[in-house]
């Protein structure tokens, strides 16, 4: 496992280099330049601008210079937002995208998993049909429709949420982390009392590690839920972003569960007299979730890159729109900067998904 991880991490820079190279040259092939506008600039001013931003050098030289700077962590100036560097713009706008994206992830998982499991357990019931029809609807209606409609209903008509904007305050987080921490300690103490404290013969370090990761997952989820609940501006954008994913997750989960539920080991579990809940939670879920997990990698990536519509409709100062607009603006360094950022995120996410596979499916081994 360790060697596998190492190998994947070593290939990361190579993948990035390929992405940057391809994007660099493709972008320069597109017609127009960062300063082209309806009004043609006098040639001498165009010249000064090209010199200032280094566009007067031959393309290969520019490419070399860019790589040199990028390796040192300097992604260059932005020709559009002239007071800020690409690094600053990325830092300014990555936060909202992550917050909305994570919010959407939690929402889509909770809605999707719930609907999928219910659909599978009560297969071919009214409940199953209706939740799957809703899911079909959620998947096929694009966000630029759901967005305005939800705004109309929740913001303008019922006035429960604001029309737009982005406000994320984290001041409740220390309390939540403290409280959950106390709960975690209490839980471990109780476990140790029952099965053996550290140092005793019965102590199982593997269980401690598992408990730690479960706690981390629970804390992270609770924090994001808390953020959504305490910041009313986040709910509508997260929801609109989540809907198509929730629908897809529901369908995947239902299919995955249906397949697992008819397997022999589930029959065995039932035969030995386990309750239906125990069968589902302890045995069926793990196997049934595999399709969802493999979907999560690309889904998280899509949540981070695909927020353009949501960011526009709700005026969220996120990074997805910088990604698109910088390319349209021919803001070369800015566009490359977003490529580098997204590239890194995607590669790392795919890695995490591959590793998670190993945990969920004992048949998968990495060596």
């Amino acid at each position, binding site marked *: 496992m360790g060697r596998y991880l190492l190998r994947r991490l070593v290939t990361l820079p190579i993948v990035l280099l390929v992405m940057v190279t391809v994007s660099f040259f493709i972008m320069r092939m597109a017609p127009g330049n960062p300063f082209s506008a309806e*009004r*043609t600039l006098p040639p001498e001013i165009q010249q000064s601008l090209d010199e200032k931003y280094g566009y007067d050098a031959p393309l290969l030289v520019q490419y070399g210079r860019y790589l040199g700077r990028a390796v040192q962590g300097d992604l260059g100036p932005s020709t559009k937002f002239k007071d800020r560097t690409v690094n600053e713009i990325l830092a300014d706008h990555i936060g909202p995208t992550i917050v909305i994206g994570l919010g959407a992830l939690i929402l889509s998982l909770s809605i999707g998993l719930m609907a999928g499991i219910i659909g599978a357990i009560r297969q071919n019931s009214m409940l199953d049909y209706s939740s799957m029809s809703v899911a079909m609807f959620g998947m096929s209606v694009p966000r630029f429709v759901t967005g305005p409609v939800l705004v109309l209903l929740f913001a303008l008509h019922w006035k429960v949420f604001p029309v737009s904007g982005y406000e994320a305050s984290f001041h409740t987080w220390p309390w939540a982390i403290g409280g959950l921490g106390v709960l975690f300690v209490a839980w471990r103490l109780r476990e140790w009392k029952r099965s053996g404290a550290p140092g005793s013969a019965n102590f199982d370090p593997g269980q401690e590690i598992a408990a730690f990761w479960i706690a981390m997952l629970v804390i992270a989820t609770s924090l994001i839920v808390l953020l959504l609940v305490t910041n009313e501006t986040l709910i509508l954008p997260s929801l609109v972003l989540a809907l198509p994913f929730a629908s897809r997750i529901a369908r995947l989960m239902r299919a995955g569960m249906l397949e697992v539920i008819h397997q022999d080991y589930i029959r065995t579990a039932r035969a030995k007299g386990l309750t239906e809940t125990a069968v589902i939670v302890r045995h069926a879920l793990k196997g049934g979730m595999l399709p969802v997990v493999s979907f999560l990698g690309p889904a998280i990536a899509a949540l981070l890159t695909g927020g353009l519509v949501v960011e*526009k409709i709700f005026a969220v100062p996120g990074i997805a729109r910088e990604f698109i607009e910088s390319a349209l603006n021919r803001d070369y360094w800015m566009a490359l900067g977003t490529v580098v950022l997204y590239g890194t995120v995607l590669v790392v996410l795919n890695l995490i998904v591959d590793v998670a596979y190993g945990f969920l499916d004992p048949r998968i081994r990495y060596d």
Partner: protein
Amino acid sequence: MRTRSPLLAGTLVCAALFLTPGCGDDGTTPASDGAGPTAGQDDGSAGGDDSSGGDDGGERVHVGDGGRPSGGDGTSTSAIPREGEALKGFDWSTLFPAGDGWKQFPQELVFNNGAEPDTLDPHIMTGVPEHRITMAMFEGLTGHHPRTLEAVPAVAEWWEISDDGLTYTFHLREGLTWSNGDPLTAEDLRWSWERAMAPTTASQYAYQFYAIKNGREFSDGTIKDFAQVGAKVIDPLTFEVTLHSPTAYFLELTSFETLFPIHRGSFEKHGIQWTRPENFVCNGPFVLSEWRPRDAIVMVPNENYWNRNMVRLTKIVAKPFDDLNTAYNEYIAGKMDWLPDVPQKRIDEVMLDPDYYAWPWLGAYFYRFNTTKAPFDDLRVRQALNLSIDKQSLCLDTLKSGETPATVYVPRAVRDYVDYPTLEGPAYDPAKAKQLLADAGFPGGEGFPDIDLTFNTSERHKQIAEVLSSMWRENLGINVKLRNMEWKVYLEQVRSMDYQMARAGWIGDYVDPNTFLDMFVTDGGNNNTGFASAEYDALIKSASSEPDLAKRGQMLHEAEKILCLEHLPIMPIYDYVKQGVRRSRLQGLQENIRATHPFQWMYMDGPPAQGR
């Protein structure tokens, strides 16, 4: 629900429109309407294809020429002395007396600026969103009257102009300071101009200095020594500017951002970071208090502003919503007081809003013909296309927002501000158009090749193109294929003359026919039609140095006749209007053709809006 149904309908229609591919708001085309991705820049990107007027034309800031104001709306414009010592001690409060009623209301203005400003550096900025912000925080030697656009005293308390019109002596106010308390003297102006002109600054508006002696040479690097440029400090309160030829609108140039002073200490200490709130030093009515990119810019009054008593607003919040639909929703919810642009997709609903206004704007919407290639190298074909479209019906039935159909290029409303004779082009006449096309060898459109009509992707441009092409099909029997493309690609194709017929828009730089007409001189950088006329070039050239304003207007008039009646390399379609909504409690927002609205005149005469 009943009372909301129009709203509901509006939004649903909107949602439906979103489905249309290529429509701006789906976000995939932030650039849509000329809205250049260079958002808010020349191309008015501010609004995706919502941007009112649609103009890619470039909603860019305009340099006024204002030397010749037209009187205005009776708000005592004549109270402004024109020049010389008469300006000294001019009492501003006489301009727009407001009484005391406003004082009981909170003086906070939230408005939609339409895009995230590219920069807050006045020397580097180019677009309208940047213009609104920098106008609030900086001030040049002169300012302008919010209604008539006349030059009014600002940093300069008064000025003298030499008889030959070449030397301007500006007398600065005594005791002027920057927002941090540093004194502001003539040396600040000299240094700022040097910085703005320097090739290393690479200001896209450096050409605003070309009127000044050696301004062009210094900014392109042929002259390295700024002492040779016609901008001299006589003493701390006297700044002397020498022009290389008389320029009627020079006092308007000095109210333009590129010629504003900026604070040297702050710039030299912080580099490009000088525009951050913590480093920001300025000399205008407001100072920068917060800058949250893509979220808000907050400005508060500058306590060191020389005319602090005139400034009534206590806080200005500029929101950067480029989704005008969202902005209008915020307006309905009572969160904003002024939208300088409205969503075109909901125009039917917006026009019923009691707060709606539509003011003539200094812009023209037209189509370019590529006159170097068949079939548009034939004048009769161009005339036939022009005569066979019913612009009246286009404006009334399709655009529906007060645009005036245009038969000539220079917008009609310019005549309210400058001395310029009226010109009428030919009216809608399909019979004559048919005849002309037949004369050109295509009776009934037979044998006429299919034409490509190029435009940048935008719902509005598409709509107009569809209406016009159906008129051509009906009246002339010819086929027009619509070709939409991304903004920068479209620009490149027009520039390289790789088109047959192309949409265009132009927003004037200053209130004068010249800003429209001088682009069509032979081989002009913005001509892009192949039009070349020695007679036209001569008229434009002699007009630029003609001191007699009436004669000058006549010359430009003759030039426009050549352009629009004789050669027709372009087909005028309509004059832009600037549409917006503003609360009735927002006072001091005055109509003017440049759609530039200084904040120091504005105040709130009523309680905050409750939303609907």
